[in-house]
């Protein structure tokens, strides 16, 4: 069964097209991820699915409910964890959860045991009387996960769930999420611009400039790169690119000063390549393709380069403003 169905979603903020016709579906029990640089339109899609934004065109259904016509039913059946904290800092952890419980109309005899169970799961039961102002970033995120699950939603939306957290906390958060998937009948829709985080997904859609560039399972995406990835650096990358193209008849790409190309059976190819290459090699590497390689192949750019692009940063700012509208 499809838990989320999006059909040709479009969202424009004035002149700017944040999402330009996106269609996808998410199956029950799946972890589905949107991977893309900042400003690619990921958050806009989440906001449309969770009824915070109206799409300019297109339709979407969540749990079988239309996000425009039946927004209250959608809201009741989903849980959300946003990029930035949405806790009430002046209240305690427990009070934040109770507020949520009342807001979703959870009866008291269900709420209290559920609250305890979730706080214990995220290891915050001992700190339940602490004010949010005394919480660290990782604790806040854990509390938000507990809160998002309080009303037993069938879909959990995670918008950049570990943004701004240190690697250790990030791993911890993902341990909780995997643990959750085993315990509850959950479907997860998430966005991220961290490649490593996208590795947690069953299926990934790479989104760029408001459009889905490619969408498949992790394995299929990596296989699509075609063999192993050879990466190397030289003093003169431009010349090296030409050499690879002309002498080896391969199709290299360049990102972050590193030239990459794909060959079948890379470990057999590499020795001959190293001894025969006409230019001085500074470093050589061989790897199984990663999502980064998929991204590079599909969009022609590395995800990090795109983030450094000031124009994109500006667009993102415009989008952020628009999002509040």
């Amino acid at each position, binding site marked *: 069964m499809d838990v989320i169905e999006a059909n040709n979603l479009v969202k424009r903020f004035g002149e700017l097209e944040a999402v330009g016709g996106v269609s996808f579906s998410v199956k029950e029990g799946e972890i589905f991820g949107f991977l893309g640089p900042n400003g690619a339109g990921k958050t806009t899609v989440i906001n449309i699915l*969770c*009824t*915070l*934004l*109206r799409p300019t065109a297109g339709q979407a259904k969540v749990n079988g409910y239309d996000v425009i016509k039946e927004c*209250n039913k959608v*809201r*009741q059946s*989903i849980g*959300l964890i*946003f990029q*930035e*904290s*949405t*806790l*009430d*800092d*002046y*209240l305690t952890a427990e*009070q934040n959860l109770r*507020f*949520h419980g*009342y*807001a*979703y*109309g959870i009866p008291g005899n269900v709420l209290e045991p559920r609250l305890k169970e979730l706080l214990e799961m995220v290891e915050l039961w001992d700190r339940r009387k602490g*004010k949010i102002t005394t919480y660290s970033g990782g604790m806040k995120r854990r509390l938000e996960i507990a809160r998002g699950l309080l009303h037993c939603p069938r879909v959990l939306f995670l918008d950049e769930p570990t943004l701004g957290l240190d690697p250790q906390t990030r791993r911890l958060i993902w341990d909780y999420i995997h643990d959750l998937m085993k315990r509850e009948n959950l479907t997860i829709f998430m966005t991220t611009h961290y490649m490593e985080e996208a590795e947690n997904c069953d299926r990934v859609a790479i989104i760029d400039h408001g459009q889905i560039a490619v969408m498949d399972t992790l394995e299929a995406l990596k296989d699509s790169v075609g063999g192993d990835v050879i990466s190397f650096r030289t003093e003169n990358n431009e010349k090296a690119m030409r050499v690879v193209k002309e002498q080896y008849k391969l199709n290299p790409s360049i990102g972050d000063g590193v030239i990459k190309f794909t060959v079948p059976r890379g470990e057999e190819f590499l020795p001959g390549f190293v001894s025969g290459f006409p230019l001085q090699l500074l470093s050589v590497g061989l790897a199984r393709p990663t999502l980064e390689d998929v991204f590079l192949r599909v969009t022609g750019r590395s995800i990090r380069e795109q983030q450094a692009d000031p124009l994109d940063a500006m667009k993102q700012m415009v989008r952020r403003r628009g999002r*509040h*509208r």
Partner: protein
Amino acid sequence: MANFLRSVWVIAYRELLRFVQDRPRVISSFGMPLVFLVTFGAGFGRLIGQMMPGVDYIQFMYPGILAMPILMTSVMSGVSIVWDREFGFLKEVLVSPLNRSGVLVGKAIGAGTIAIIQGTIMLTLAPILNVPVGPETVLALIPLLLILSFSLSALGLLIGARMRSQQGFQLLMQLVIFPMLFLSGIFFPVSGVSRWLEVLSKLNPVTYGIDAIRQVFLGSAVAGVTVFGHTMGVVDSALVVVMAGVVLLAAAIWAFNKQE
């Protein structure tokens, strides 16, 4: 309807929780009125002497001083929706199944409840200042404080519904709250001043709230607002406040719902 009522009480409950937990806010809401009472009372009191037979300046000012923390807290509680937006909590509310109109009504009702608590605390000053307080005064005061705070938080909500950042706050204090405070008859009667000042004061709904509260304390002889030749009694003034509140709240709900 059930959802609407639930929204009202959940939000009102949170407003109260926050008020109780935010001690600096509680204390500061009393600070300014007390400063006014002491400085103006000591400064002008001797100079002005009796405002009317049997009513000296401090007694005249006291009902307004009692309403002052309510005024500030109510407008601010409405505007606090901007804080909620900036610190993200509003998102938690907006993605929940809570009814949006109910959310705003809940904010206003929460502010009203806080107003009663503040009014009660300010009431303890009355005996010290020789202002007569009987049980009937308190009974009449409760609904008046409620509606005054309801209307003012509706005003705050209307401002907050469209405001995107806290940067406008200073401006808001200077251009809305202070003028409303000074042109409300708290410090001087609205009649017998320059014509333009009188007109502005009579357009200010707070004026009617203050006048009604003053009449509750000091009797109808102090009634100070005359509109089209009619001297406003307690009930008349209360109706003006309620009407202003309903209009402001309706406008706030409209502005708030428009944001999707």
